[in-house]
C-alpha cells in the first residue's frame, strides 16, 4: 500500500512519499504541504527517477 509518512521533531516537519511511482508522489503530498506551511527543500529519490525513466521508455516504445 502507498503511504505518506509525516514526521515532526523539534518543530521541524518532513514528508516522505513511499511506494509512489514518479510524479504521482508530488500530487499525493501537495495537500499536506499546503496544510502545514512552507516547503524549504524537496528531494527526489532514486525511486522517483526510476519511475520517471520507465515512463520515458514507455513513451519512446510507443513511437
Amino acid at each position, binding site marked *: 500500500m502507498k*503511504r505518506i509518512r509525516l514526521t515532526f521533531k523539534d518543530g*521541524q516537519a518532513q514528508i516522505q512519499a513511499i511506494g509512489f511511482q514518479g510524479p504521482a508522489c508530488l500530487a499525493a*503530498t501537495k*495537500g499536506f504541504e499546503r496544510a502545514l506551511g512552507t516547503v524549504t527543500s524537496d528531494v527526489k529519490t532514486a525511486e522517483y527517477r526510476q519511475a520517471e525513466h520507465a515512463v520515458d521508455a514507455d513513451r519512446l516504445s510507443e513511437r
Partner: protein
Amino acid sequence: MSHIAAIDLVISDLPLVEAVITDLGGVVVDQSTYTWYGRNVGDSRDAVFEALEIEGVTRGVCAKAFRPAGWKPGDYEGGIVRLPDGTYRLVWDSWSTGRNLDAAFGKGGGRIKDHMGAALSIREAARQGLRARKTIEADGTVAVDVFVEG
C-alpha cells in the same frame, strides 16, 4: 520512497495551538501580555520583537499567553504572538523559570509545533478521505502515517 520534503511549520490556527498546549499539560490564559525578564535577556531575543520594538513586558501583542503545569505567580509565561501576516509565533524567555517552559513545550515550542503538525496532517487526511495513524517514537519524534489505496 520517491521524494522527501522538508517543511517550515506555520502556526495559523489559534484554537488548535491552544488545544495542543492544553494536551501537553499547559494552561492557556486570555491576556495580551506575558511575563518575562526583559528585552535583551540571553537567548530569548527575537527578531519579531526587535522589529516591533517591544519593551519589557509586552502589552497588546499576544493573542493569548500560556503557562506550564506547576506555574506559580511571577514565573515566566509563554506568549502566542500574532504577526502582521495573520500567523502566530510562540515566544518566551528561556532563562530562569522560563526553563520550565522549555521542559514542558520543547525549545522554541518544538513539542507544540510537532503535535500541531500531526493534528493538521490527520485533519488533511480526513479531508481527503484517507486513514491516518499517529505514533510517538522512542526519540520523541511524532509520526503520522497516511495510507493511500491503489
